[in-house]
């Protein structure tokens, strides 16, 4: 199970953070500090697995961004790496060649996408196509609601 997901820049600035276990605000701040410093200090070309307390941090660097998932000890490292890759591909598909600025200015969208990929700390959907469809549906729904073309229960009028 994923305990938390952290996305931070090379400067250690947190871009996205999601905690699937109840960490208090203080603990979160401490975790961020420890995790970022631990991962940023590692030269590239080393393994993407770091032990942190009783968890495994599995990270992958894309351009200037580090995607980190903290998982239980018995989790398969390679599959976690694939999960990260999966999420990044979904981001890429959604934003079209995603970059750090996309994630900064559309952090809420990135969160929505994250919620589509993981629920309660588990991978929930493995099909990128399906996620893309769901998200675009939701976006359309939001837009439709904005335009008032939606019924009270949220069912869009135009969409059968």
């Amino acid at each position, binding site marked *: 199970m994923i305990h938390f997901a952290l996305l931070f820049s090379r400067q250690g600035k947190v871009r996205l953070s999601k905690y699937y276990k109840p960490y208090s605000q203080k603990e979160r701040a401490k975790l961020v500090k420890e995790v970022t410093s631990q991962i940023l200090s590692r030269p590239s070309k080393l393994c993407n697995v770091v032990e942190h307390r009783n968890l495994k941090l599995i990270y992958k660097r894309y351009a200037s961004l580090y995607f980190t998932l903290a998982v239980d000890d018995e989790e398969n490292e390679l599959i976690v790496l694939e999960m990260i890759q999966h999420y990044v591909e979904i981001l890429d598909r959604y934003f079209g060649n995603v970059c750090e600025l996309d994630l900064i200015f559309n952090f809420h969208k990135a969160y929505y996408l994250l*919620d589509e990929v993981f*629920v309660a700390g588990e991978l929930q959907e493995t099909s990128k196509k399906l996620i893309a469809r769901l998200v675009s549906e939701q976006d359309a729904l939001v837009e439709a609601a904005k335009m008032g073309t939606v019924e009270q229960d949220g*069912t869009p009028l135009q969409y059968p």
Partner: protein
Amino acid sequence: MSSMSSLGSQRRLKPESSMMGSASTYMFQKNLKDMITAIRAQKGDGSQKNFINKCLQDIRTEIVSPDVRTKAVALEKATYLHTLGFNMNWASFHVVELMSVSVNVKYKRVGYLAATQSFGDDTDVVLLIPNLLKKDLASPNPAEAALAISCLGNIVTPELSQTLVADVYSLLNNHKPDLRRRACLCLYKCFLRYPEALRPSFARLTECLEDDDQSVVQAAVTVLSELAMHNPKTYLPLAPKFYKLLTTSSSNWMTIKLVKVFGALTPLEPRLAKKLVGPLSEILETTSAKSLMYECIRTVVGGMTTQEKIVRQAVDKLKDMLDDQDPNIKYLALHALTFLLETHPRIVAEHKGNIFGCVEHEDSNIQYCALKIVRGLVTKKTLMDTTAHLMGAMGRAEQRFRDELVWSVVHVCMNDRYALVTDFVWYLTVLADLVQVPASCHGGLVGEQLIDICLRVEVVRESAVAILKPLLLDGSLLESTPANKTVPEALKSIAWIIGEYACFVTDHAEVIKALSNPSVTNLPAHAQAVYVQSLLKVYASAIPEAKLVPMTAELTAMCEMIQENLKPFKNSLHLEVRERSCQLSTILELASSAEDATLGRGTAIMEQFSLALSEEIQPVSHRAQKKVEAPAALGLSAPLSKEWDGLLLSSDDEDDEDGGAEGRKKRSKGSKSKPVTDLFTARKTKEQIAREEKDARKMLKSHREKQSMYYLGDDASGEKKKKGKKNRKGAAPEVEAAPEPELTEYMKQSYAGNASRPVIKGEDDDSSEEEYASEYQDAGAAARYAPKVSASDMHAGLGTYDPLAPLARGEDMPTVEAYPTYDPYENEGGGRSAFQVPERRERKHKSERKKEKEKEKKAKAKKAAKKAAKKEKEAAGEDASEDKKGSGKEKKEKKSKSSKADKVTEKLSKASID
């Protein structure tokens, strides 16, 4: 009418005016993008912080706006700042407000995002949201339900879980597979926080394994595999279902989960391993996904080590992985090999070359893992080669890893009482090399090893002196540099060895010069002291054995050198060093003045010293104390005083009729007040005593404050008096609680049940687990798939277990075994039910024990009576059934009687026994 209408208009006016205001804030509100751009434009941490604080102030004013749009934007901004590390707890009420907006999912989404990000166990508004979440979970709009599920999956608290788990559960029946899947995953989180929920949901959850939609099946597999990791044993009955899925699954994601579950189950069930050989070896052969292959290998090395064929296959794959350029793959391959160390060391040893190479890999993960394997692979034959290799690696290693290497070398050699070491002179040279490892932190350890070996292996002492002398002479080791961090610890041992075995020293002058080197003062005091002491030993050993030979020029020169070099030591700030050096100096003076008076006299004195010092120190076994017999006169079990004995008996032995007035009073009190056992259980008594003592102290204090004038003279006596009083009040149970003869009796009675209780409990489960372990699997696998929460822990805590208490950080979810009343597999048999709650053996108070005794006595009496009655009845030719009835009636009657009456019967029965 008119007044009414005016009221109405007033009412209408208010919101309108506020709408106007809100519209203006909306118009002038910075949107999210503006704010982020502005924050990014701020250079420097300070100005950025100031700016953000300003933004937060704006947000605070905007968020109270009744206009939903303004509120939403403000909240979105607050959420962004929250990610940057700024608190948004203050906004939690507004978050809830926005979550409940139903006109547009867009706003709801903002609210939910903010809640997911910022709510925690300590958020108080969480109390407000159950109904809201309930409504959204049941919403006909799947987007809303999905939002609620995702949110719940993050912020669920035990209370939320308790209230909402039923709603999540009912979503398992939703017609939308998307929601079913989400609900399934969310349930796991609910179980984690509120374990009670698992019991009723379990059956439906397993049904999800047969769902039409693959993604739902996958979710169910995920949840069940997570649950199985907590307590694999309970999930063994699901193995056939998992197996079926494994053979039919087309998704790698799911196959990995399934293989993982089997990894946890196979150590418990050997037949499973046999069955899995087919599918797993097929996957190993065909799959191109490294992750799946690795999972298979993990399962094989974890619990299927009995299946040689597939182990072979897995190891072949591991070989490829070891050769992989990707450090992750390499690391994981090594990690998997560590599991095989115990069962298949030979197979692991085949990859020795590769593993040795990994010790010098640039990645520390790989290094540590490889080192672990190397440590496990060492045999008598390979010890020297391995050590040489590790010593070679030290030069290139980083500081931390170098320390690890030093530690590894020493521990490989010293393990099992030096089982692997055949040549101790070789080991001494290794240790001597280890002393010189720069900046090592294990100087002390190496020093201890040196002394240990010299003490215990007599034959190496001469070589030890020869090997270690160069280190003593090496002036560079005495410098206090960071590279010599712990070298002094080792030097201390070396100096001691040279001094102790000075008879093997050949060049005394050189050694004495080294021992009294002025830079010895750089060492810590305890090391200096040893150096000074060794000086005396070495000098004394330089004296030739023939008696009354005048001192040679060499000896005099040495003596002078010592005297000269001792000067700085004699002024040392450290007492020990100073004392020893002064002593040494005086001895030498004594000897030389005696020599001056009569030739040969000084030598004689020194020879006496050398004789005294040459006595050997023998190593003492840590079990030596046991061999010393205790003197017969030492009565450890005899009571300390007869007086006390009487005291204890009178206060405790309730059967003792002539216990005196006090004893009687106490007993009557005891028999009158019903909760006598409660009152006297150990814990309560302690608390009581503490409270009473506190009260007494308080009283004493207040009394003293009031009547301080009276306390001047008889301060102590007053206190004594008080204490006496207090004792009478509070100590009665205390005395009862721990009377000595009573205790021994008690120990006899319930030693097995009480004293060894924790052991038995632990062992109970351990042994059953170990049984499995020893029967079917290797120890490594057991370690790997040891349940996160051992069942015994679960049982032990059950009495006070509060399923509502939030799990602490790092605490894992209680296993299913937390539910004492339910066992879905109780029909499966298998002896020990996982759900059985072991009877909690309370520490019984003696009053209870007494009662038990009495009961026993009663029972005996009854039996006797019964027998007698039977005989009578047999004699009378009466029916046996009647007899039974009669005795049953008797019992009932007895039960219904009050405790007083009980006592009477008890006495009667006693009398009958007598």
